[in-house]
C-alpha cells in the first residue's frame, strides 16, 4: 500500500469513529475557548471584584461572572480558561521534550542494535522501575516550584515508553533496502538515523504523542492539586480544583466548574488518541 493510501485509509477510519470525531470537535472548542476567553473577558485573572457581596458569587449572567467567582472575588471564567491554557502549554512542552528524548534514544538503540542497544534499553528498564511521581516531588522539594521545572521533570520521565516503541520500529526498519542503500552510499550513521529512521517512525510517534498529552495534563494537575505545581499568580486546572474542594460546602460551583472542564479535556484527548491509534493500527486492540 502506498504512503498516501495508508493515510487516507486511516483518515477514513477516523472519520467513521463517531466518538473520536465528537471528541476532536470539542477539543478544538476547548482550545479556542482557552485562547480567546481570557482576551475577551473584562476581568484579569487576579482582579478582585469588590462590588460583590459576599465576594464568592455563584455563576450568573447578570453580574458578568459566567462561572461565578472564587472566595477572593476573582472571576472564575477567566481563571478557568487561563488555567486551561497553562495546562495545555505545560502538556505541549513536556510532550515535545519527551518526544525529542524518546525518539532520539529509541532510534539510536534500535538502529545500532547489539551491545549498545542492550545497555541503552537496560537503562530504560531501570528508570521504569523508579516511582517517578515521587522523584518529581523530590525535584520540586530540592529546586523549588517553577513551571520550567515541571515540564522538564515530566518530559524527563515521560520519554521511556516512547523510546521503547521507537526502538521496536527502528529495529524493523534497519532491515529495509533503503537503509542498506544508504549504508552502501557511505552515509554516516547519525545521518541515516536522522534522515531514514526517524521520518519513518513519525506516524507511530504522532499517535503516541496524542496519548501522552492527557497523561501530562493529569500529571501537572496532580502536582498542582497537591500544592506542588503551578504557583500564584498563575493558575492551572488542578489548582482550581484543589481551591474549589476547600469551599465545596458553601460554594460548590468553585469545584464543579474546573472539574468539569478538566474532565472534558482529558476525555476528549483520550477518545481522540484512542481513535487515532485504532485508525492507524487496526490490529491493536
Amino acid at each position: 500500500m502506498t504512503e498516501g493510501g495508508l493515510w487516507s485509509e486511516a483518515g477514513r477510519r477516523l472519520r467513521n469513529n463517531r466518538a473520536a470525531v465528537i471528541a476532536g470537535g470539542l477539543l478544538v472548542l476547548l482550545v479556542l475557548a482557552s485562547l480567546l476567553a481570557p482576551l475577551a473577558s473584562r476581568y484579569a485573572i487576579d482582579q478582585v471584584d469588590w462590588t460583590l457581596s459576599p465576594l464568592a458569587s455563584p455563576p450568573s449572567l447578570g453580574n458578568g461572572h459566567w462561572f461565578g467567582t472564587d472566595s477572593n472575588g476573582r472571576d472564575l471564567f477567566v481563571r478557568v480558561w487561563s488555567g486551561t491554557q497553562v495546562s495545555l502549554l505545560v502538556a505541549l512542552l513536556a510532550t515535545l521534550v519527551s518526544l525529542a528524548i524518546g525518539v532520539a534514544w529509541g532510534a539510536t538503540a534500535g538502529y545500532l542494535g547489539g551491545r549498545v542497544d542492550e545497555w541503552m534499553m537496560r537503562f530504560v528498564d531501570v528508570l521504569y522501575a523508579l516511582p517517578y511521581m515521587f522523584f518529581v516531588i523530590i525535584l520540586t522539594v530540592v529546586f523549588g516550584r517553577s513551571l520550567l521545572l515541571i515540564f522538564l521533570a515530566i518530559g524527563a520521565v515521560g520519554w521511556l515508553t516512547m523510546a521503547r516503541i521507537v526502538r521496536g520500529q527502528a529495529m524493523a526498519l534497519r532491515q529495509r533496502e533503503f537503509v542498506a542503500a544508504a549504508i552502501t552510499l557511505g552515509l554516516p550513521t547519525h545521518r541515516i538515523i536522522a534522515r531514514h529512521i526517524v521520518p519513518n517512525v513519525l506516524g507511530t510517534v504522532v499517535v503516541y504523542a496524542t496519548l501522552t498529552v492527557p497523561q501530562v495534563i493529569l500529571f501537572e494537575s496532580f502536582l498542582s492539586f497537591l500544592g506542588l505545581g503551578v504557583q500564584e499568580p498563575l493558575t492551572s486546572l488542578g489548582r482550581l480544583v484543589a481551591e474549589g474542594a476547600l469551599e465545596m460546602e458553601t460554594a460548590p460551583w468553585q469545584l464543579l466548574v474546573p472539574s468539569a472542564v478538566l474532565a472534558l479535556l482529558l476525555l476528549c484527548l483520550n477518545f481522540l488518541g484512542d481513535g487515532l491509534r485504532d485508525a492507524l493500527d487496526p490490529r491493536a486492540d
Partner: protein
Amino acid sequence: MLGYALRRLLGVVPTFLLIVSAAFFLMRAAPGGPFDAEQTLPPEIAANLQAAYGLDQPVLVQFGRYLSGLARGDLGPSFRMKDFTVAELIGRGLPVTLTIGAAALVLAVLLGVPLGMLAALRRNGWVDHAVMSVALAGIAVPGFVVAPVLALVFGIRLGWLPVAGWEAGSVRHMVLPVITLALPFVAYVARLTRGSLLEVLQSGYIRTARAKGLAERVVLGRHALKPTLLPVISFLGPAAAALLTGSLVVEQVFGLPGVGRYFVQGAINRDYTLVMGMVIFYAALILLLNLAVDLLYGWLDPRIRHD
C-alpha cells in the same frame, strides 16, 4: 523456581541502591541548608546543629552513615516534625494506607474482571460499548476530581457517608476513599480482561474444547479463565505503584492519617529527611510488590521462569 526467585531478587538490589543514591544526592544538591529558613543563628549554634545531624562530615561519610542506618531500618529524624523519626511517621500512617490500598485492589479485581469478560463475550454489542466507554472515562478522569465530587454528593448533599476523617475499623469512613482509589483500576482491569479474553478465545485449545462439545460455561471457567488473568496479574505490580501515588490525593482529600499525607505535608514544608526517607520507603515497597507479582507470574506460567 528457586533459581528464578533468586535471579529476580538479585535484579532488585541494584535498582534499590540506585534509587537510594539518587534520592540522597539529589537532596544534597539542594540549594541552601535545612536550617536556613529559621532566624539567623549564631555561628556556634549553627555549627552545633550541623554536628548534631552529622552535616559537618564529608558527603561520602554522610552517605555511608545513611546506608548503615537504612540497613537497621533507621531513616533518620524528621527535620520539621522535631519529635518524630521518619520511621515512626511511616509506622503510624502505614496501616491506613495499606488498608485502603488493599481494599481498592480487591474491589478492582472483583469488579473489573467480570465486567471485562462480559464486554468481551458481547463484543461490539451495546454492553461492550457501554463498559468500554465508562472504563475510558474511569481512566481519564483523575481521582482528585472524583474524590471531592463524591464527597460533595454523598457526604454533604445526601449526608449518607462521612465527608472526611478516619476511625480504625469504621467501614463507613472507608467507602468513599476506597471507591475513589479503585475506580481507575476497575476500568483498567476491565479493559485488560476484555482484550486478553478476546485473544484467548481465538486460540486453538479453546476451539478444541468447543469441538469436544463442552458447555460454554466449562470452556470459559476451566480453559479460558486462567490464561485470561495472566495480563491482569502482571498489571498488579505497576498498579501497586499507581495505588500508592493515588493514595497521596485520596488521603489529602478525605483527611486520612496515612503515609501519603505525611509525604505531601513533608514536600510542602520542604522536610528534606522526611521526603527522602519516604521516597526510599515507597521505592522499596514498590520493588517488593513487583517482585511478588513476578514470582506469582512465574509460578502460574512456566514459560516465564525458563526464559
